[in-house]
C-alpha cells in the first residue's frame, strides 16, 4: 500500500482536475472546495461485510414497509408502536403524499445509512438518509483514480470492484420507470453535490436536467431537449429536496422545481427517486423506532444496533437525559448535516441551562444519545499516520430487491477533537474497500 500512499498527490490532483468538489455556503457565500481524499482505505473484511449487508437490507426493507404503511393504512400508529404525534408533528410527514402509492410501492430507492464502529468492534447505525443521500460518486471516482495511479496495489489486495454502482443505480431507475427516459434532476451547478449529479448522469446514461428542462402536460412529464423536441420521462432521480420539488404543492417560490410534477406522480405517470415524503422515516425522532419497525413489519430481531437513544418525550427517558446530561449528545430533530448536534459536556453553564429548559418545554424536538467510543481510523497527515473519527455511509439500493453496494463513503474529521465528519463541516473522505476473500 506504500505505493498508493506515494501516489496520494496524483489521485488528489486527478480529483481536482475532474472537478470532484464540494460546494458549501458559509455566511451566504458559495465556496467550492476540494473534498480532501485520504489514501488509506477503510477495509471491511468479507465476513464483516456480510454481516453489515444482512443488517442493512433488513433495515432498509423495514423502512420501506414503514413508509408504505405511514402513507397508507397507518397500522403501526393504530397498533400503538409509534405515537401518532411523532408522525404528524414531524416536518418530514407530508400530508400531500398521503395515499399515493409510488410505482412498485418503493419509497426509498437509494438509502444512505450512516454507521460508526465502536472500539469494541460493534457497528451502530447513527442515522438513515432516505431523502437525497449524496456521496456515492466520491469513492466511485476515487477508486478509479487510485487504480490508475497505483495499479499494483490492487494486485495485492482482493478488493471487490465498486464500479458497478452506476449499473445498480440504472437498474434501480429502470425498475420503477413508468415508460420514458431516466433523468437526474439537479438544482444546478451551485448545488453542493453538483459534481455527483453530473457524474452519475454520465455513468448511468440518464439525462442531467434542471427544473426548467422539464414540463408537465396532462399529468405526464416531458423533457424538452435543445432542439425543442419532447421526450416522455418515466423516472426522475431528483436531487432536489421535497420542499423545492413542485412550487404548486410545496414552497411556492421555488424556481428549481417542476410545476405540477406531484400531480403526474400522484397519477402514477412518473417515478420519483426517492419518493417525496421519505423525510418521515429518517426523522431523528422516528430513528428511535426503527428497531421496533423491524420487529413489527418483518417479525425479525434487528441485526444492526441503533446508538443507544433516549426520547425526552417519554418521562423515564427525560429523567435519564436530565440526570446524565453531561455524558450525552443532544440532537435537534429538525436539523441535518451536522448542525444542531450538541455535546452536553461541552456547553458553558448558560447554554446548558438554556438547552435543558428547551428540552423540558419541547421534549418532542430532541433526542439524546450515548456518546459512542469510536474506533478511530488512521489518516495520512503530512506522511504521518494520525487517528481521526470516521463514519461510514453505506449505500443501499432497492430495485426488484435490496442490494448493498460493496463499497461506501468513509468520511473523517480532520480536526482531532471533532466527532463531526460531515463534508459540509470540512471533513475529508476515504475509499471503502470490501474484501472479496
Amino acid at each position, binding site marked *: 500500500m506504500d505505493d498508493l500512499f506515494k501516489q496520494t498527490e496524483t489521485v488528489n490532483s486527478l480529483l481536482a482536475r475532474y472537478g470532484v468538489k464540494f460546494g458549501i455556503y458559509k455566511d451566504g457565500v458559495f465556496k467550492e472546495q476540494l473534498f480532501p481524499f485520504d489514501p488509506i482505505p477503510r477495509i471491511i473484511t468479507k465476513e464483516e461485510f456480510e454481516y453489515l449487508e444482512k443488517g442493512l437490507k433488513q433495515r432498509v426493507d423495514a423502512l420501506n414497509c414503514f413508509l408504505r404503511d405511514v402513507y397508507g*393504512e*397507518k397500522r403501526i*400508529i*393504530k397498533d400503538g408502536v409509534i405515537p*401518532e*404525534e411523532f*408522525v*404528524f*408533528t414531524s416536518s418530514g*410527514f*407530508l*400530508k*400531500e*403524499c*398521503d*395515499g*399515493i402509492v409510488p410505482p412498485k410501492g418503493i419509497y426509498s430507492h437509494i438509502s444512505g445509512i450512516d454507521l460508526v464502529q465502536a472500539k469494541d468492534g460493534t457497528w451502530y447505525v447513527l442515522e438513515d438518509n432516505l431523502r437525497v443521500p449524496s456521496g456515492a460518486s466520491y469513492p466511485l471516482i476515487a477508486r478509479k483514480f487510485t487504480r490508475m495511479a497505483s495499479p499494483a496495489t490492487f494486485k495485492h489486495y482482493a478488493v471487490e470492484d465498486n464500479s458497478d454502482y452506476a449499473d445498480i443505480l440504472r437498474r434501480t431507475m429502470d425498475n420503477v420507470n413508468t415508460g420514458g427516459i431516466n433523468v437526474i434532476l439537479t438544482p444546478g451547478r451551485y448545488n453542493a453535490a453538483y459534481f455527483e449529479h453530473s457524474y452519475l448522469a454520465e455513468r448511468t446514461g440518464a439525462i442531467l436536467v434542471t427544473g*426548467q428542462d422539464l*414540463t*408537465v*402536460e*396532462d*399529468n405526464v412529464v416531458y423533457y424538452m431537449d435543445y432542439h425543442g423536441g419532447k421526450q416522455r420521462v418515466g423516472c426522475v432521480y431528483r436531487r432536489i429536496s421535497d420542499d423545492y420539488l413542485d*412550487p*404548486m*404543492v410545496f414552497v*411556492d*417560490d*421555488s*424556481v428549481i422545481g417542476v*410545476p*405540477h410534477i406531484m*400531480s403526474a406522480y*400522484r*397519477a402514477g405517470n412518473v417515478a420519483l427517486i426517492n419518493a417525496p415524503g421519505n423525510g418521515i422515516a429518517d426523522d431523528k425522532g422516528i430513528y428511535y423506532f426503527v428497531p421496533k419497525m423491524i420487529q413489527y413489519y418483518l417479525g425479525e430481531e434487528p441485526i444492526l444496533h441503533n446508538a443507544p437513544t433516549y426520547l425526552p418525550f417519554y418521562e423515564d427517558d427525560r429523567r435519564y437525559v436530565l440526570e446524565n446530561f453531561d455524558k450525552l449528545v443532544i440532537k435537534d430533530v429538525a436539523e441535518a448535516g451536522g448542525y444542531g448536534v450538541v455535546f452536553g459536556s461541552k456547553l458553558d453553564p448558560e447554554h446548558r441551562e438554556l438547552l435543558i429548559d428547551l428540552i423540558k418545554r419541547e421534549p418532542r424536538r430532541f433526542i439524546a444519545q450515548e456518546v459512542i467510543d469510536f474506533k478511530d481510523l488512521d489518516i495520512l497527515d503530512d506522511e504521518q499516520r494520525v487517528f481521526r473519527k470516521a463514519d461510514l455511509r453505506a449505500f443501499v439500493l432497492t430495485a426488484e430487491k435490496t442490494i448493498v453496494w460493496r463499497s461506501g463513503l468513509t468520511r473523517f474529521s480532520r480536526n482531532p477533537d471533532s466527532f463531526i465528519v460531515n463534508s459540509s463541516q470540512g471533513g475529508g473522505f476515504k475509499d471503502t474497500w470490501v474484501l472479496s476473500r
Partner: protein
Amino acid sequence: MDTLRQRVRSLQVSVLPDVPCTAGFDGFGNPIIEGTVAAEHSSFSVDVQGVAEVPSAESDRPIPEQREEGDGSMVFKYNTARTAPGPAIRKLMESVPEPSGDIISDVADIMHLVHSSLRYEKGVTCPETTAEEAMAGGSGVCQDYSHIMLAILRSRGVPCRYVVGYTVGEGESHAWAEVLCDGVWYGMDPTGDSFVGPRHIKVSHGRDYDDCRINRGVFFGARSSSQLVHALVSPVQDQEVRR
C-alpha cells in the same frame, strides 16, 4: 366541491390565455384544476362561474359537511407552525369554559369566545400572520379568527381543519373552521359567529391557510406582477337554476 351540505349545480372555468387544463385532486382530497401556459404572455386570468346549492335556512345546530370514513383526521389533530399557540392564545385558553361533555356545544363556546376576543379589522394582518401574532395584536380577519380557533381546538386534542370558501356578498374569499365530531365534519364560522349554512360555499380544506389557497402558481420571467381578486356571491332562486 360537493359535500353533504352543498352541491355544485354548475361550474364553468375559463382561463386566458386559453390552455388545456387537467382536473384532479390534491393531497387533502380537494378538487384542483391545473395547467401551464408555455407561450409568452403579459397577463393571466381565471374566471370561474357556477351555482352551488346550499340549505335555504339558518340552523341552530351545526350542519354535517362531510363524513370522515378513513383515518384522514389524524393529521388535523396537531398544530402547525401557523396555529401553534403562544402566550396570547394560552391566555385566551384560560377563559375557555369547562368541557360539558357535549363536544358540539363546547366547540360552539370556543367559537363564541374567539369571535368576541378579536376585533375585525382589515389590513392589520397579512396572509403570513400566525394565529399567535393575530391574537397578540388583538385584531384580524377571517383567516386569523379561524387559525386561532384551530389553535385552541388542537391544543385540546380536537381534530379540526381550515376551510376556504365564499360567503354571500362581494369582495374576497372567506375562511372558517371545520370540527370532527363522531365521524362527521361540521363547519363553524368564528368570524360570523355562526354555524356554516346557507351563506357559505366551501372550496377546499387543509391544516391551515397554506394548504388551501384558491390560486397557486409560478411564472418565469424578469417582470413584476400584481394580482387582482374579485368574488361575487349572490342568492339565486331555485327556478332560475333549473331553467
